[in-house]
């Protein structure tokens, strides 16, 4: 009688099988743009996944060296183009730290409101595209429908929907328009219901949970060793949110929680984003309540010439810790700029996470890392 084990032995010995290489990307529906993964497969099981990036490299760090400090602001928009306000914020705060510029209270509150609005907009894209990657296309459209309302508000403030260039050293470029406040208050009332809708359609779905739970588990030690940050790190249960751990701007005045995951799997990483959006709504509501009157621009010099030296400053971006390193030689142009881009660093974990999972899980894992290629390649 032949048992299952015998059969498997016979299969392994008598039938010649081979691994093959599958080139996923740079043009593939699930790679979020131009990103390539070279997969070595054994049947449908991943033996090795090699990430190849650089297809969207524009040399923004080098371009910055030929521009004045203010002129770099529009370029920071174009790194993580889904969360441009946060990129602006990190950059101008680095300069303010370098030059010791005082930022007025009102400007700080406006910055927090804008940053959290952008965080919600960015997480909405992340949640929506993740739904597509698991195969449910409808969830994406619901997220985009609600993101549109946020983009309308951002457009009302800055004149642009995504590449905002709104923040300046010492404050923001323009005050909030009069019609903004009632609309943002109305939206903050509506958003939690929308998040419930995503929870019902995407998070609560048993098929979705079967696809994502306990898939691509990242334990806290590995996450820290790979220097992961943002929702990716917190999904593994590490409580590290710069807004709480090392508050910048006026974040220490707001009451909010840092959501933490338990298993560090794809489901937790996805869930982190919905929970964070709920917290962002709380922060915005408090910031609107406490929004003081006053100037929106502090006393910053017309020509920005930071003293000779270097400065590193980091903020909690939408995808993790966004750090700016600036070196000044005393001229109006940066001598060197380097950006710690969270998606790039989180992406380093991809091959570690993918190994041993199925082909379909590569898409689930890549989606849960939530990369923006503009930021990865910079």
């Amino acid at each position, binding site marked *: 009688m032949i048992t299952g084990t015998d059969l498997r032995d016979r299969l392994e010995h008598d039938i010649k099988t081979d691994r093959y290489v599958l080139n996923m990307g740079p043009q*593939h529906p699930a790679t979020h743009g131009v990103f390539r993964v070279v997969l070595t497969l054994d049947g449908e099981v991943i033996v090795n996944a090699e990430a190849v990036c650089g297809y969207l490299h524009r040399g923004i760090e080098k371009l910055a060296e030929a521009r004045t400090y203010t002129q770099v602001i529009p370029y920071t928009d174009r790194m993580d183009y889904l969360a441009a306000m946060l990129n602006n914020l990190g950059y101008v705060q680095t300069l303010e730290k370098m030059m010791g510029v005082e930022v007025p209270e009102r400007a700080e509150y406006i910055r927090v409101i804008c940053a959290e609005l952008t965080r919600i907009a960015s997480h909405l894209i992340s949640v929506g595209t993740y*739904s597509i990657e698991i195969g449910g296309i409808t969830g994406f459209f619901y997220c985009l429908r609600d993101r549109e309302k946020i983009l309308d508000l951002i457009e009302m403030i800055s004149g642009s929907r995504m590449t905002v260039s709104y923040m300046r050293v010492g404050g923001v470029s323009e005050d909030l328009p009069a019609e903004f406040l009632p609309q943002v208050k109305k939206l903050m009332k509506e958003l939690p219901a929308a998040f419930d809708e995503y929870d019902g359609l995407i998070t609560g779905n048993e098929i979705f949970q079967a696809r994502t739970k306990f898939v691509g588990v990242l334990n806290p030690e590995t996450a820290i060793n790979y220097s992961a940050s943002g929702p990716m790190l917190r999904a593994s249960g590490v409580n590290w949110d710069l807004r709480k751990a090392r508050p910048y701007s006026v974040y220490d005045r707001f009451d909010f929680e840092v959501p933490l995951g338990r298993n560090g799997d794809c489901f937790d990483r996805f869930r982190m984003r919905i929970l964070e959006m709920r917290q962002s709504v709380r922060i915005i509501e408090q910031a609107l309540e406490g929004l003081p009157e006053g100037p929106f621009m502090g006393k910053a010099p017309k020509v920005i010439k930071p003293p000779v030296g270097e400065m590193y400053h980091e903020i909690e971006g939408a995808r993790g810790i966004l750090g700016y390193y600036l070196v000044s030689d005393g001229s109006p142009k940066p001598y060197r700029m380097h950006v710690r881009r969270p998606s790039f660093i989180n992406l380093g974990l991809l091959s570690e996470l993918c190994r041993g999972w199925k082909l379909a899980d590569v898409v689930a894992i890549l989606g849960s890392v939530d990369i923006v290629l503009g930021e990865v390649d910079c």
Partner: protein
Amino acid sequence: MGDRIFIEFGNYLSGLLALAGAPLLLNQVILMIVKIVGALLFILLNLMFIIWLERRLAGWFQARVGPNRVGPKGLLQALADVGKLISKEIIIPGAVDKVIFLLAPVLIFVPSLVLFAVVPFGRGMIPVDLNLGIFFFFAIGSLSIVVFFMGGWASANKYSLIGSMRAVAQMVSYEIPMVLSVLGVVMITGSLKMSSVIASQTQVWNIFTQPVAFLIYFAASVAEVNRTPFDVVEGESEIVAGPMTEYGGMAFAMWYMAEYTNVILVSAFAVTLFLGGWLAPFGWTFLPSWVWFVLKLYLLIFLHMWVRWTYPRIRVDQLMSFGWKVLVPLSLANVFVTGFGMYVFRGIGW
């Protein structure tokens, strides 16, 4: 009166031919050709409508409007799509096996078209009432998998190959629960003939006596036609488009249309087997029988679309284990319970 309009037309035609002095054989051949053309027209018109319906419903489910520019309410969208696809070149990549590559999209239509021969469209409106109708459906229906594999293999593309391997695995594991679920119906009916299956449902539809079988059949049929949540064969976020990856122009359109033909087909069989076919519910015979058939058909097609635009995709190994570990035992249990129930009811003299 509308009920018999197509049959009357057939009788009229045959009478006309007899009057013209055509021999009986020729008379029958011509009548058959008319029937085939009728079935083809039914398929093509419904295809056009279903493609529009799918895109429109997808839009509405997704907070969008959907195609609404071509023709009234966008109804001519499918026509515009076909016009565009016909005018495109069918690109044949260098490494493909040309003959098989081009044969596959032609052959994919064959099983679907053949199967329409046994669909009862209305009272007395079944092209061929085989006494093995249900058996015929499963026998021919599973042929399409060969064509899927042809397309995937000939494309010389790894995504296509993975897709077609998945297609084979999926079809094999979903044919079995599908057949087993229908077995319950066959036991109650005592016949494999389509007309007697419908006749046996005059009192009560099979969906009420066999609810579990209906659910299993529906799940398996969704897998059979490769739609979400069981669309691993062409899961676009993983393997681009599975076996259709390398196809373009009209060759792609053939795959696409065959998919929708299959949706009509499995829904038509579900209507026949579980929803009483062309029988009117509650004795509402004011509508012709074929209208009832089409109404029920579209109810099921709507269900297919609703499910597709709500659920995410299941992973391929989960799909297999769901098929073998859940659906097969469940359908076996259903067969057992049905048999037991029949025995008990016969015992108490129902």
